[in-house]
């Protein structure tokens, strides 16, 4: 087994679940004894990925968002946020700072925040099939 622990959550794409998702990941990550800053970074990145799924993947209807967290060897938290929504036609464009297809309540900085707060970020998307955001964060080992 390459991972030491895992959890999976499925929830509908309701905006009230943004806070639930980031809190659930923070509770799960607590067993790695993260610093407050690391926990803040993880909560922020999860909030961005889940919000993207809620706002962009299912623009006209509710769909399911799947959140999977695994603890890998070497104090690494592995997070996958997956949807079966509309997909991203141009990932490079979506990753560009300030780019958004949302309204004035969106800043277009979601992927930029995920990139700067996590150790690794991969985005896979097929238009009409859905999007998977895969993030990793290596945590410092505290003495």
């Amino acid at each position, binding site marked *: 087994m390459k991972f030491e622990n895992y959890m999976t959550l499925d929830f509908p794409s309701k*905006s*009230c679940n*943004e*806070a639930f998702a*980031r809190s659930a990941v923070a509770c799960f990550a607590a067993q790695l004894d993260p610093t*407050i*800053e690391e926990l*803040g*970074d993880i*909560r*922020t990145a999860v*909030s*961005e990925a889940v*919000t993207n799924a*809620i*706002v962009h993947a299912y623009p006209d209807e509710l769909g399911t968002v799947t959140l999977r967290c695994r603890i890998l060897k070497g104090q690494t938290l592995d997070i996958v946020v997956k949807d079966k929504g509309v997909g991203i036609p141009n990932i490079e464009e979506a990753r560009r*700072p300030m780019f958004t297809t949302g309204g*004035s*309540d*969106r*800043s*277009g*900085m*979601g992927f*930029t*925040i995920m990139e*700067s*707060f996590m150790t690794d970020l991969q985005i896979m998307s097929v238009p009409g099939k859905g999007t998977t955001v895969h993030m990793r964060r290596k945590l410092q080992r505290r003495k």
Partner: protein
Amino acid sequence: MQFTSFLQDGHLTVALTGEIDHHCAKRYIQSIAAKIEAYVPAVCVLDFKEVSFVDSSGIAVVINALRSMTQIEGKLVLSGLGEQPMKVFRASGVDKLVQIKEAVS
């Protein structure tokens, strides 16, 4: 979403609370725009002292307030930022667009 605001000597202070994410950002954006439109302040201070978390939706709240203040040739100031909100605003360059005072180190 909860906030209080007060006007003194042309300075409008809006004290935000809790966690600012997409779920509440739109209501914050609309409420702050309505306050600025009603009072036309020379300075608007967004007080983050009681805000424990922001994501990029918080950036949109600040950018929209900045847009409203620029339209009336006023100034926007952020105050009382904790470490997590400050890190988000630094990563996105908001700290270069808006004056920040009394950030919690």
